[in-house]
């Protein structure tokens, strides 16, 4: 295991989504990579993500959505973060964030417009996300 890099992540599965396995894997992978992880588990509301990020002074919020309603659940997240004093905090989303097989370029654009810094397509391995995190947070 790498030494802790001092960067703090808040992760969880948003909305009424109960897919519990993927987020555990992400928690484990991020921790192995040296991040300090607060995993909120499944069925996490926007408010919970924000409350946890404030108390833990997080460097990024990472949202997972697998059941297809990600777009609905993520709407307004960035506005709420701004409202809560988390302006500019790094915000990622990934999993199976929309229903079925849609053109991902389009999906990505929609989530960018919603204020997400990075949007990951289905099947993204944890390593990709870790590389992005390190780059965005200036680790190494």
């Amino acid at each position, binding site marked *: 295991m790498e030494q802790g890099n001092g960067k703090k992540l808040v992760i969880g599965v948003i909305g009424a989504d109960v897919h519990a396995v993927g987020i555990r894997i992400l928690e484990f992978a991020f921790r192995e990579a040296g991040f300090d992880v607060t995993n909120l*588990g499944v069925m996490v509301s926007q408010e919970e993500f924000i409350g946890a990020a*404030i108390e*833990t002074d997080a460097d990024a919020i990472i949202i997972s959505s697998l059941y297809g309603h990600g777009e609905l659940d993520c709407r307004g997240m960035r506005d709420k973060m701004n409202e809560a004093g988390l302006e500019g905090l790094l915000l990622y989303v990934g999993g199976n964030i929309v229903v079925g097989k849609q053109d991902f370029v389009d999906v990505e654009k929609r989530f960018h417009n919603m204020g997400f810094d990075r949007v990951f397509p289905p099947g993204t391995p944890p390593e990709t996300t870790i590389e992005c995190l390190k780059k965005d947070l200036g680790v190494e």
Partner: protein
Amino acid sequence: MRPVLLIDFGSTFTKVTAVDLSSEEIIGTSSAFTTADSDIGTGLEAALDQLRRAVGELAFEYKLACSSAAGGLRMMVSGLVPELTAEAARLAALGAGARITRVFTHELTRRDLRAIEADPPDIFLMTGGTDGGNRSCMEGNAEKLRSVSPRFPVILAGNRQAADSCEDSLQDFKVIVCPNVMPVFGTLNIEPVQREIRALFLNHIINARGLSRASELLSGILMPTPSAILSAMKLLADGTEREPGIGELMGVDVGGATTDVYSVAAGEPSDINVICKGLNEPYAKRTVEGDIGMRYSASGIVADIGEKWIAQCAGLSESRCEALMDELAADKSKVPSCGQDVLSQFDFALASGAVDIATRRHAGTLEEAYTTSGRVYVQMGKDLSRIRRIVFTGGSLIHAADTLGIARHALFSGRYPMSLRPMKASILRDDRYILSAMGVLAEREKEIALRIIKRELVNLGEIGSDDSL
């Protein structure tokens, strides 16, 4: 015979309980009225006189006390996010027996500072941030608090990285640094803070509260009354190594101005398909409803539950109830005369309402969430539905003619199916009002206190929710 004396300094009454440690029996109890401005020793003398007349002169081995006199232990707490560290701080202070006068969240404002100066607390509990998390909240608040006078003890129990700088800011205060009330997100750690609160109460607050004369008479231990009651409840539930307890329980104390609810229970979900959210609440939990009480807060009961409900429960017309409310507002010491009069019917409804509201605010809740794969449940707070014992203490419940009728309102109700209250329970009544005394005695004699509680509580039998499933 080995007599010891246990004293409960209240805001209106001083109650004394004499216990013989050899026979493990209560020798006698008595109580005397104390006015707000008379020295607390006067009430104690009067109560002791009465006790002497009833059971003769006793040479007490020691004297211990709890107190809620002179406004009780008044605390202000501050945290960062309302439902996280601020809530953790609130739960910690309540469990230590405090009366919380203000809860501050995020940064303190100039107005907050003025409010603190206008009505300074006995202790200020400052929290905010997980360990390694946010530190600007605590550091900023400590810096702001430094200019406030008068000085009061401040307990720092937030992000441990913030403690040093806060301590520097608060050099002129008595500062106690404690482990974080929420060291990791969602996890409570409130016992260390509660120990410090009790130590401060014993060593610093007593003098400031005009209790010093009384404390000279005591053999050391003095704790806030609610903390003594919670400690007795916990002892009764858990038992000791040699003396078994009776298992998880709830407690209700409806007073004139406030209503306290206690639960000693893990509160885990009854069903594996329930997802838990929010803070993991303490095993021994106390809540206080400042707007719910039989006299000073009678209007709060009506405001919450509605005039119609009260009238129906009392079997009186709404206009009759309104008139009674006015009478109570004018004369707070009014009590029902013996037998069945209208006021006792009305009091039955007020007590029932108080129990209903306060237990609902204490118990956890379920929320139904419809997902694409069907219904799931989300639990907030503690699931108390499997608790099978409820202890009732406090004048309005002990002396009520129909305690069981009132107690029923602490149970699960079809009106509030999402409130996780007991489905059925045995009702135990603290007839001689000994719980606080036993909580204090337990500091020295756990097993004796436990055996006396078990013997003294009157089991009124088991009742079930009318509309249990």
